[in-house]
């Protein structure tokens, strides 16, 4: 087994970090931050498959995240469904929705696709805010704890391991996908759409497929967030969260699964670390973002790998 490949070495490294990290998590607050990193990373790994590998933009993925969160919340809190059943039904529902919405809008390209996904996200956000009978509107709603076979899942420490395992699973599947015929088809579409089509790739089918998969990743992350935090508000469904997610993917490095994880971790941690700067927080945050894109235009991880390769050749 070659430990230098992403699928073995990279996964082992990620597993080691997840295992060792609790030693550094001095209190529940830092556990919360770590869980938030994990959740965002899961969404970004899925979103990177769509944006980074297949080259299709989505400015509405917070909508899928929100549907996952509210789907689980509503089915368990309002209708008394067992959390597992709610999770399964919500995920399936989001997959079907992504399929139905994806077919027409993924025929669009570039800015037009960005606008269409943006619109989709905004519609979901508006529905969540206005359907206050179901969702609690802008005030949000509380969500019952996750239970499985009578065992409850509660507390930061327990959720840390659940989210950690889910992240490992997400990364493993993403790495598998990109090195499969289906994954090659996506990268080929990004490289040359007409070249891919004459090679026998059904562009629409491939794009819609990866749109659905990335939506499912976001939805699962949303469902986990709802049960973990026990209370959800429409803030995480809106436009700004979508932009945040895309920024994480771009910052970490497009077409790099571990880059997406690093992007999610950096942009989740940075605001926490910058709180000491008080009112200058956003100024420094913005400066860091601009500097990254100027000096590391391919995003953090791919730029780093390229530098290392250059050094090696010298």
């Amino acid at each position, binding site marked *: 087994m070659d430990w230098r490949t992403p699928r073995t070495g990279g996964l082992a490294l990620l597993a080691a970090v997840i295992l060792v990290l609790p030693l550094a998590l001095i209190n529940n607050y830092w556990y919360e931050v770590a869980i938030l990193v994990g959740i965002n990373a899961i969404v970004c790994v899925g979103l990177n498959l769509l944006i980074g590998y297949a080259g299709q933009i989505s400015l509405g993925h917070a909508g899928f995240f929100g549907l996952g969160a509210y789907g689980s919340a509503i089915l368990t809190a309002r209708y008394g469904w067992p959390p597992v059943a709610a999770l399964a039904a919500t995920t399936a529902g989001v997959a079907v929705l992504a399929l139905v919405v994806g077919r027409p809008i993924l025929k669009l390209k570039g800015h037009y696709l960005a606008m269409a996904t943006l619109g989709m996200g905004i519609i979901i956000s508006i529905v969540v805010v206005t359907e206050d009978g179901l969702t609690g509107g802008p005030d949000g709603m509380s969500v019952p704890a996750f239970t499985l076979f009578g065992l409850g899942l509660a507390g930061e420490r327990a959720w840390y391991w659940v989210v950690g395992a889910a992240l490992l699973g997400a990364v493993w599947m993403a790495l598998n996908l990109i090195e499969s015929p289906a994954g090659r088809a996506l*990268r*080929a579409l990004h*490289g040359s759409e007409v070249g891919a*089509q*004459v*090679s*026998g*790739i059904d562009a629409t089918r491939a794009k819609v497929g990866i749109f659905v998969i990335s939506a499912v990743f976001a939805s699962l992350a949303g469902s986990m967030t709802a049960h973990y935090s026990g209370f959800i508000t429409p803030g995480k469904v809106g436009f700004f969260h979508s932009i945040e997610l895309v920024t994480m993917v771009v910052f970490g490095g497009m077409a790099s699964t571990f880059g997406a994880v690093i992007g999610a971790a950096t942009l989740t941690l940075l605001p926490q670390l910058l709180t000491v700067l008080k009112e200058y927080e956003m100024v420094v945050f913005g400066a860091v973002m601009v500097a990254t894109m100027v000096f590391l235009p391919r995003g953090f991880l791919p730029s780093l790998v390229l530098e290392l390769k250059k050094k090696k050749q010298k």
Partner: protein
Amino acid sequence: MIAPQLRVTAVSKAFGGVLAVDQVSFDLEAGKVNSIIGPNGAGKTTLLNLLTGVYAPSAGNVVFEGADVTGLAPHLLAARGMARTFQNLQIFFNMSALENVMVGRHLRERAGWFAALLRSRRLTAGERESRDEAAELMRFVGLGDYLGAEADAMPYGALKRLEIARALGGRPKLLLLDEPAAGLNQTETQAINALIVRLADSGVTVVLVEHNMRLVMGVSDHIVVLDYGRKLCEGTAERVRNDPKVIEAYLGSAELAQC
């Protein structure tokens, strides 16, 4: 007489008011090298795009192996056994050379989403096979030295061959090459020439869209000449070369006299 593999009947394509291809008809026999030639702007590439589904014709129809395939999407034509290369390269520069060729095998691969996400055992076995066959194809087109290369690190001449290897990945019955020798030097052109002959010998019908007269005259069994979107004449190299209409269409008629 055997039925033609490809029958093109009165195919036209208009871009706004411009008729890029105007009522072109011809038949292609299986297993031969066929060429489409003509001066710049004669509509050669447009015609190729019509045959491979990149554009839908404004009128006329295309019959491939007895079935009407007019206006079918490129991936459906690929599934029926058509493959092509491009004049302006359509390489996947974000992938390795080997992966480019593996994409060419797409239709013969297990492309299911679940098997891909969970990396099923059958998929792993298929991947090994795919890698081996892609490497073999690269050697066949003379790219044995580039098995480990990234596509964006390869020279132009090698990329032209890479597109041919990718096209062969689908085991096509009909292979359409759009100016395979454009931008190549004398030696590279001769090598491409030899490759085309080998392809035809292996039973693939080759359609060559070319500018390079020397290449066309040397290898073609059948030539279709276009000018201003219309078919000027067709036939063997000998016949085309001596057709006064063809000589007139090529202002540089000296070029024809040369070969």
